[in-house]
């Protein structure tokens, strides 16, 4: 059984004050096998991010189903699961990285990464060690660890985001342009980390604007405009 089966997914937004219906992705059908990495490509505005956000339930799907084969629950339709079930899956099985960063006020970079583990019940000494290891891996300068990330550059924020998600080694990763504002050196690190996770049997759906980055990383490429998997 596939780890993720998307069937006929469509998403429309209705904007009340403009009385407008906006169509995003239409009739998407996509299957991801366990251990597989799929890259989504397509023109901007085609609804690439929408697919990821529907899987993560940040968006409510308008029609269709997204069945995830969970360790805890077995096959579960993410469009129908309860809010608490989604929260459980986000904590334990599904990781999402975007270009944007939301952190609590007065939370340092290191605490932000540690919190991902603490909420799983990891003890604080271990959480700290693993957080440091991850921040070091993504080359976030050590003098930034004890700072609040509000002042970080785009690339620093992204690395912090990656560290926050990757420290948990999620079973299914949703990556929304995780290399958008990174220099080449850091991109290589991100790719290496993803390759390591792939070897560990993790699965991924990602959006990358950089075809070279996907080379050797993604097993298949899904072209959203054509609705095909290649």
């Amino acid at each position: 059984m596939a780890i993720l089966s998307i069937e006929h997914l469509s998403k429309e937004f209705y904007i009340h004050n403009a009385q407008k219906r906006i169509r995003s992705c239409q009739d998407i059908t996509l299957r991801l096998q366990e251990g597989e990495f799929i890259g989504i490509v397509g023109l901007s505005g085609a609804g690439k991010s929408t697919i990821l956000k529907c899987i993560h339930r940040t968006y409510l799907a308008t029609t269709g189903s997204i069945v995830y084969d969970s360790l805890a629950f077995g096959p579960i339709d993410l469009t129908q699961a309860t809010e608490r079930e989604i929260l459980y899956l986000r904590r334990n099985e599904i990781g999402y990285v975007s270009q944007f960063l939301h952190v609590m006020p007065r939370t340092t970079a290191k605490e932000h990464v540690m919190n991902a583990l603490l909420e799983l019940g990891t003890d604080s000494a271990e959480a700290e060690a693993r957080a440091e290891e991850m921040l070091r891996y993504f080359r976030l300068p050590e003098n930034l660890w004890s700072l609040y990330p509000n002042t970080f550059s785009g690339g620093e924020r992204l690395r912090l985001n990656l560290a926050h998600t990757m420290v948990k080694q999620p079973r299914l990763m949703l990556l929304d342009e995780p290399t958008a504002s990174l220099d080449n050196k850091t991109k290589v690190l991100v790719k290496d980390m993803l390759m390591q996770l792939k070897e560990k049997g993790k699965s991924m759906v990602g959006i990358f604007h950089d075809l070279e980055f996907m080379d050797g990383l993604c097993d298949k490429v899904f072209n959203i405009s054509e609705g095909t998997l290649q």
Partner: protein
Amino acid sequence: MQMRLQETPVLSVQHLTVRYGEGCPHCLAGGKLEKNRCPKCGTVYAANDISLDVYPGEVLGIVGESGSGKSTLMQSLYFDLEPTAGQAFLQNFHEGKKSIWEASAAEKRHIKNTLMGMVYQNPIRGLRMDYSAAGNIAEKIIAAGSRNAGQMTERAKELLSAVEILTSRMSEAPRNFSGGMQQRVQISKALANNPSLLLLDEVTTGLDLSVQARVLDLIRKIRARYGISILLVSHDLAVIRMLADRTVVMLDGRIIEKGLTDQILEDPQQAYTQQLVYSLL
């Protein structure tokens, strides 16, 4: 074979209605209201058929404008006003089988002192301004039945440190404290007897931004440290975004929308919620 998440809510509110007025055949039968008011008889529905669950260790946010019924819900839960209809079950009160609104006067005191903690927007409602900070906490501990002065002092020290109030100021009266400090003392008082549920009613409203950030940060730490469940009422979506796992949107005494907080913020469904989200700074 699909399994579901098995959890028992810490608090389950079912069909809460608070009505001001007798009602008439139109509104009692569920006829259309003008906002929260019956057009035929003028009866006001401050809370109208509200149901929600709060699960262990989560923060449930409640957002809505003034008059939406947020505070009516909180006041009903803390017995500050009497609901017209509905039930509310606390998991650690009669194993969740008896509605707290059917509790005896003694049981209600027990619920307020040990099972729930309440923090009001205005600290005057939650604190005795002329007692000392430690005295405020002691009062709460005594109400729960303890008489050991030494233990009380220790507990007051522990709680005040947890909310970052210097223990050297514990014998001062909160009236000498700044608004943010008063709010922190109020939080420590609410935590005095280790309640399983904390009710926070607009606790950062009226505080300036840096003080607000400090109180929010404190709430986050308290949640992590004590694993307490929190019902958080705010008209401020930024506060909700920072703290709430799930969010309920209220308008005119009703729940009009509920969902994961990021979903409410990024994909709001109702016209009112969209308006609210698009106004977020």
